[in-house]
């Protein structure tokens, strides 16, 4: 299907948004309704390194993981859980492997659902395997295998289909290490969005055919790369004011999934999902303080503010004092959800939302822009030119700069370095054309020359 662009916001105001409630709840799996008035823990895990040695070992590993999670949820009395299996490359390169894992997991989940009534769903996140050793290969043979992996998993037990797609990453990796704002705009906003339109039209068709849910994508490959390179307050690898510009640009890119038939819940590591929720009204998974097992961030509480599912990003499966890692982390997630659900049931959700938000609001320019009131403003800037993928990405970047500047005039403290990086970025954005065709032509010439692994044919250019 062609993309149906968003040109208006789902919510009349930022204050309408809350955790656990979305405009368009999604029914999935075994009795779940997502974004329908309660939050749901979503546990994510990675097999131990040696488990990838064979299909049999992998399946056994995921059976252990699934049983551990389901049993812990029942033992502590939690009513709902989502399991997310992010494919290791073997499972997507060999679609039957992923399918057999999905089947094995779902069989266990059905047993628990039948015996205890626990509501649950299984998300499978297919690996973006569309690369060969030398170049991305977004179209062609690899793409066929990629889609086959979705279809086989959907037919074998996966309820929610997701991916962290990589379109534009080869240009982004070059640009982000050179403070190149036009390059970030081109890679995420243009190339990323174009690739998203292709893949999500096809994934949504598979979901429709198999009766599963096209759940959504995340700009992990780019915006999270910027966030991770940015690191903590004392790291010197990327100004956080640039990392949040990459994040703002990623929102219109991740939005494309929903314009092509995805319905949520958006995937956990999309910190841009708060902006996407404001635009679409669809449920979103988020991760923050509970993903410290995988990475650090500077908005661990804030990002819970409007989540519908609450995730831990990923944890390697192994033993801890309190059980296996998936048991420990799923219990953590479920207790957080119990608190949010208590707030919802007692009509205190806006108070708790604001406490989450405020505790991190001024911690960093990234958290400041993703505070729900500011995220809503970025959303408005996107839908203002919703039909032009370049212009809406540029709008998001400019709005992001303006929000940070306004914050810096108040209680958001910036270092001189962050301030200069922001000013340079804003000047770079202000110098750009509003004409998408001209921008695309200029960038095509520039990055074909500068990035040897950038093949325009990957994007139909």
């Amino acid at each position, binding site marked *: 299907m062609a993309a149906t662009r968003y040109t208006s916001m789902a919510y009349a105001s930022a204050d309408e948004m809350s955790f656990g409630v979305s405009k368009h709840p999604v029914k999935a799996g075994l009795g779940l309704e997502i974004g329908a008035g309660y939050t749901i823990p979503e546990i994510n895990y990675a097999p131990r*390194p040696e488990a990838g040695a064979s299909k049999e070992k992998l399946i056994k590993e995921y059976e252990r993981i699934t049983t551990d999670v389901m049993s812990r949820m029942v033992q502590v009395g939690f009513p709902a859980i989502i399991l997310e299996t992010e494919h290791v*490359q073997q499972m997507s390169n060999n679609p039957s492997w992923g399918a057999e894992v999905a089947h094995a997991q779902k069989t266990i989940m059905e047993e628990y659902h039948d015996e205890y009534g626990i509501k649950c769903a299984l998300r499978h996140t297919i690996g973006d395997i569309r690369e060969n050793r030398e170049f991305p290969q977004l179209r062609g043979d690899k793409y066929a295998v990629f889609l086959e992996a979705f279809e086989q998993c959907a037919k074998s037990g996966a309820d929610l289909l997701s991916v962290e797609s990589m379109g534009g990453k080869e240009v982004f*990796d070059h640009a982000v290490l050179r403070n190149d704002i036009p390059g970030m705009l081109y890679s995420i906003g243009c190339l990323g969005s174009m690739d998203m339109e292709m893949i999500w039209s096809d994934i949504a068709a598979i979901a429709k055919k198999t009766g599963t849910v096209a759940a959504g994508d995340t700009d992990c490959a780019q915006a999270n790369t910027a966030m991770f390179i940015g690191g903590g*307050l004392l790291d010197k690898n*990327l100004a956080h004011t640039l990392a949040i510009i990459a994040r703002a640009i990623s929102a219109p890119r991740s939005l494309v999934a929903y314009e092509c038939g995805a319905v949520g819940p958006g995937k956990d590591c999309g910190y841009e999902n708060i902006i996407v929720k404001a635009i679409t009204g669809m449920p979103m998974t988020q991760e923050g303080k509970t993903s410290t097992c*995988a990475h650090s961030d500077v908005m661990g509480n804030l990002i819970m503010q409007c989540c519908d599912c609450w995730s831990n990003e990923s944890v390697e499966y192994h033993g801890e004092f309190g059980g296996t890692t998936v048991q420990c982390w799923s219990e953590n997630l479920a207790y957080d959800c119990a608190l949010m659900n208590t707030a919802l049931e007692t009509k205190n959700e806006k108070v708790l939302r604001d406490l989450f938000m405020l505790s991190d609001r001024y*911690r960093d320019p990234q958290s400041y822009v993703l505070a729900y009131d500011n995220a809503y403003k970025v959303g408005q800037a996107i839908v203002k030119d919703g039909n032009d993928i370049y212009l809406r990405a540029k709008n998001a970047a400019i709005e992001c700069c303006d929000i940070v500047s306004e914050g810096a005039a108040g209680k958001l403290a*910036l270092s*001189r370095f962050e301030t200069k990086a922001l000013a340079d970025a804003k000047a770079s954005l202000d110098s750009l054309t509003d004409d998408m065709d001209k921008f695309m032509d200029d960038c095509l010439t520039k990055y074909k020359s500068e990035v040897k692994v950038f093949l325009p044919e990957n994007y139909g250019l």
Partner: protein
Amino acid sequence: MLDFTEASLKKILTRYNVALEKEMTPEEAAEELYPKDEFVYPIAKAIFEGEEDDVIEGLQAAMDAGQNPITLIDDALMVGMGVVTKLYDDGVIFLPNVMMSADAMLNGIEFCKENSETAPVTKGTVVCHVAEGDVHDIGKNIVTALLRANGYDVVDLGRDVPVDEVVASVIANKPLMVTGTALMTTTMYAFKEVNDKLVEKGLKVPFACGGGAVNQDFVSQYALGVYGEEAADAPKIADAIIAGTNNIAALRDKFHKH
């Protein structure tokens, strides 16, 4: 919407990067470090600023004045890059500045080579790769840039590199160190296979590993493994090796932080 007073905000969080910011601007700090030689100064400054055309212009001027192109690599390009890496290590400038400077320096080295019949001498060779099955190479790209910026010759095997290809490259290039990066827990298992094959062939070369899900505990499990938490550790480990610390236990003692 809830909000803080300035006083209450200070009880909740501290922006340490703002509180501890250096007084001097990066440009002022660099100016203090540039050599004063009339030919070297503009080249070093152009390296710091990442201006490739200005680097070439400066080199051309020095060559026109009779300076040896290969000598200029060490005496001008590496000196300029030394300013950049020192300011990065001191926390005055950020990684993108280093990357842009490294681009300009490498461009300058190529220009010098084109204008000379002799080859430059480097500090040593390092073989770099991304683990088999893993295509995430931004970490490796940072490592290779930082190694080159510090005067090392890099054999970049790229991403998703088969174990046997890494071993063959070690045999062919006799590096002082091998680096491996990986994002995922399942692909990093290839490091152990690389290690085992190197050990089997009697190649006791330090194998510096890092990236995404890689951690010190995992890297410590194989004989040649040295964990690098940051990309910037790679040239430091290489420097330690050429300074005489080539025993794995000693390297671990120096670089394992946890």
